[in-house]
C-alpha cells in the first residue's frame, strides 16, 4: 500500500469514527470536540487530493470559527441534553425508517451513476499556478455575480442578528470612545503629597 493510500484510509477511518462519536458522545462538549476532529481529518483528505487551499480554509473557517462558536453556544446555553433525549426511544422507529429510506435512495442513486461525458472545465493552465491563484482568478471575474450575492446573504444575516437581539437598555454603562480620547493627564491624574502618619 502506497503512502497516500495509507493516509487516505487513516483520515477516512478517523473521520468516520469521530463523526459517529459526535452523535454518541454523552457530553455535548465532547461532541463538538469530535466534530473538530472530523473537520481536521476532512482537511487532511483535501490535502491528499492536492486541494491545499480548501484544506486550509476548512481548518480556518470550520474549526477556527464555526466549531468554536458551537462550543461557546453549548457551554453558555446550558441545554439539558438528558431532557432532550427523552423522546429518543419513542421516535427511534420513525428515525430508523427515514434513515433506511435515505440509505436505499443513496445506494440506488450511486448505483445509477453513469458518466455523462462532460469534461471538467480546463480552460486555464492549472499546472502553471497554485490553487489559491486559480480560485482568485475565477472568483472575482467569472463568479463575480455569485460572489456579490453571497456577500449580500451574509449582510442580511448580520442585519437579522442585530435586529432580533440588540437591545438599547437605559442605564447600562457603555464605552464612550470620545470621552476616553478626550481625557488628558491633567484631568485624570492628581498629585497629592501624603503627609506621614495622616494619609490622604
Amino acid at each position, binding site marked *: 500500500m502506497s503512502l497516500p493510500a495509507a493516509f487516505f484510509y487513516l483520515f477516512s477511518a478517523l473521520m468516520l469514527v469521530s463523526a459517529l462519536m459526535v452523535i454518541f458522545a454523552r457530553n455535548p462538549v465532547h461532541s463538538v470536540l469530535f466534530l473538530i476532529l472530523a473537520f481536521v481529518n476532512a482537511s487532511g483528505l483535501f490535502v491528499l487530493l492536492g486541494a491545499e487551499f480548501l484544506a486550509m480554509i476548512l481548518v480556518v473557517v470550520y474549526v477556527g470559527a464555526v466549531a468554536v462558536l458551537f462550543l461557546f453556544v453549548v457551554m453558555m446555553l446550558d441545554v439539558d441534553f438528558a431532557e432532550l433525549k427523552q423522546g429518543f426511544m419513542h421516535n427511534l422507529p420513525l428515525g430508523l425508517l427515514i434513515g433506511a429510506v435515505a440509505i436505499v435512495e443513496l445506494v440506488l*442513486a450511486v448505483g445509477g451513476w453513469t458518466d455523462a461525458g462532460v469534461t471538467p472545465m480546463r480552460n486555464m493552465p492549472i499546472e502553471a499556478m497554485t490553487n489559491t491563484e486559480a480560485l482568485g482568478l475565477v472568483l472575482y471575474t467569472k463568479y463575480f455575480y455569485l460572489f456579490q450575492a453571497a456577500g449580500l446573504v451574509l449582510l442580511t444575516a448580520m442585519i437579522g442578528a442585530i435586529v432580533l437581539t440588540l437591545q438599547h437598555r437605559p442605564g447600562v454603562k457603555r464605552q464612550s470612545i470620545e470621552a476616553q480620547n478626550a481625557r488628558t493627564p491633567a484631568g485624570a491624574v492628581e498629585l497629592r503629597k501624603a503627609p506621614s502618619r495622616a494619609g490622604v
Partner: protein
Amino acid sequence: MTPIAFAFAHSLPEILLAAGALVLLMLGVFRGGDGRDWIISELAIALLGAAFLLLFFEIKGSAVVWDGAFIDDPFGRFMKGLVLIGAIVSLILSLDFMRREGIDLFEFPVLVVIAALGMLMLVSAQNLIALYLGLELMSLALYVMAAFHRGNVRASEAGLKYFALGALSSGMLLYGASLLYGFTGTVSFAGIAQAFQAKPSLGLVFGIVFMLAGLSFKMSVVPFHMWTPDVYEGAPTPVTAFFASAAKMAAVAITVRLVMTAFPGAAPQWRQIVVFTAILSMAIGAFAAIGQTNIKRLMAYSSIGHMGFALVGLASGTETGVQGVMIYMAIYLVMTLGTFAAILSMRITGTYVENIGDLAGLARTNGPMAFFLGAMMLSLAGIPPLAGFFAKWYVFNAAIQAGLYPLAVIGVLASAVACFYYLRIVKIMYFDEAAPKFETASPAVTAVLAVSSLLTVFFALWPGPLVSAAGAAAKSLF
C-alpha cells in the same frame, strides 16, 4: 457594448435594489437616534417603484449574462413585476401597522428591499448556484421579518418555526442540486436539460424529487405546508401579506423556470410530482380551512389551495399552461393583497383583531368595506364574472388541453368545497348580528383594498393586456 456594460444593462433593477438597500441601511444607521423608521419606508417604496419602472426600460428580448448565472427574459420581467408590486403594496400596508405596534424600525424596509432583491435574483436564476443564493437571500430576510415583532411570543415562535423548517428545506434542495450536478457535471439549467435528453437516470430523478421538495416548501404546497398556518398567524400582518404575495410569486416563478428549462426531457417524472402535490394542496386547502376561526389562518389554507390550482397549469407542461400559471399568479396577487388590506382594517379600540367573528354585520357598520371584502372573497372562491374565475379557467383549460381530465375535475370539485368558507365570510358580514364597529383605517390601506377589489370586479371587462403579456412572457420559456 462591453460584456460588463451588457451585463449591467440586463440586471439594472437588481443592481439598483442592491445599491439602494445599502444606502437605506447607511441612512438608517448614521441617522442615529432611536432607530425609528423616519422616512426609510417611503424611500424604500420609491426604490422598489424605480426598479419596477426599470423593468420596462430594459433591452428587449432575452439575454444570459453574468457568465450563465442570470437570464433576463420576458418571463422573468413579468414575474419580477408581480414580485415588486407585492413588495411595494406590502410596504404601503406596513406603514400604519408598524407604527401602531411600536415596531417601526428602519431595518424593516431594508429587509423588504433585500428580500425583493433575492426574489428578483431567484426569478432570473439560470444555474443552480444562482438559484440557491437567490433563495437564501430571500429566505434569510423573510425569517427575520417573521420574527420582527420580537417582544411578541407568537411572532418569535413563527420566526423560529419558519427558520428551522426553512433550513431543512434548503438542505433538501441542496441535496437535490448536488445529485443533479453529480449526474450531469454541470450546474447550468441548459446543461442539465441536455443531460436529460437521454433516458433520465435514477440519480437525476432523485435530484428532481429533492429540488421540487425544497421549492414546494417555499411555495407552501402540500406535503410541505405545515409551517404555513402557524407562520401566517404569528407574523405581523403586513409581513404575512408579503409572504403570501411577493414570496409566492418568486417561488412559483423559479419552479416554473426550473421545470420548463432544466427538466423538459423528464416531463413524465416531474409531472407525477406536480400532479400529486397539486391534488393534495387543493384538497387540504379546501377542507382544512373550513374549521378555521382566525382569518389569517384561513388565508394560509386558502393560499395552500391556490398554489394547488396554480400547479394545475404547470402540470400541463405546455405554453398555455405556463401562461395560465402566470395569469393565475397575477390575479392571486391582487386578491391576496386586497384581502390583507381588509384584515389590516380590522381594528377595535386600538388593537388589531383577527377573528372571523369580528366581521359580523360589517355590512351595517361599514358598507363599502363589506362590499370590497365580499367581492374579494367571491373572487377567491372563483365565482364568475370576478377575476378569480378567469384565473381558474385558464389553468383548468390548459390542463384539459393537455389531457389531464382527472386533475381538472378534482380541481373543480375542490374549488366547489372551498366556496363554502369564502361564502361563510360573506354570510357573516351580511346576515349576522353586528359586532363592534371597526375604527377608520388609514387612507393607504383603504385605497389598496378599494383598488384591488375594483380590479377583481372589473377584470372581465378588459382582460386583454394581462392575458397577452402573460402569453408573450410564457413564449420566452419555450
